[in-house]
């Protein structure tokens, strides 16, 4: 399949896994083929969105931990230690 092969190539290009010669060749193709250039751009956006989405999930995991540590009565010593740092002016 031609498209699959191309998708794999774009993947290697975006992840910086191409060695110098294939990369230069690929970059030459980007110049002469605007539609390939667009597919590279969309794939780049996809990778960025995957990271955003992963980050969002990780942040909500961390927020849950924070909430638990600052509401659990067993952790009152920890809570006091941290909050004290911000109470004295």
């Amino acid at each position, binding site marked *: 399949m031609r498209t699959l092969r191309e998708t794999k190539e774009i993947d290697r290009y975006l992840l910086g896994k191409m060695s110098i010669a294939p990369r230069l060749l690929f970059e030459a193709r980007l110049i002469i083929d605007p539609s390939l250039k667009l597919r590279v751009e969309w794939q780049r956006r996809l990778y960025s969105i995957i990271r955003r989405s992963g980050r969002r999930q990780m942040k909500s*995991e961390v927020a849950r931990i924070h909430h638990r540590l600052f509401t659990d009565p067993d952790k009152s010593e920890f809570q006091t230690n941290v909050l004290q740092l911000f109470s004295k002016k």
Partner: protein
Amino acid sequence: MTEIQNSLDIKIPEERMLLLSQIYEEVFPHVAKFVANRGGTFDDAKDIFHDALVILYEKSSDEKPVYEAPERYLVGIAKHLWIRKFDDDRKKVGLDEMEKTISLPEDYFEPEESRLTSLLELTGRKCLQLLRAFYYDSLSLERIKTTFGFSTTHSASAQKFKCIEKMRNIIQEKSMDYEDFA
């Protein structure tokens, strides 16, 4: 004081919860102290520490598990985040040799494409989960095969590329509509 168990695997959700809780309890006071000394608030400390934990996670992969001593590393990331967010003087913050070698992910402060992200989360949930395992969690192909129930690593890899093409096509369709909003 909780001991941090380095045997816990940050890439396994249940173990991650435990590991991050231990790290949180152990290291947050240090980061909070640093932020308080620089004149920051509790919420500043919280935001910075949460970002630091996310970045610590992103820097660990199957090949390179979470750092032996996450304490120093996290405080280092937090200092960099502080400098970046509040434009504080690097010299006044004072970075040691190890801390100077730390770099933040270059796309961490780029604006979000939240519309497109939400759309893909809705329409391509399964694909996004698989792609996240490859491109965000940096799991090994072997582990992805097991986690997602593929019979071979080859079929896991083949599905990955199918998903990339599927999601890329959605982006292609939507990018025209959303160009003004992105």
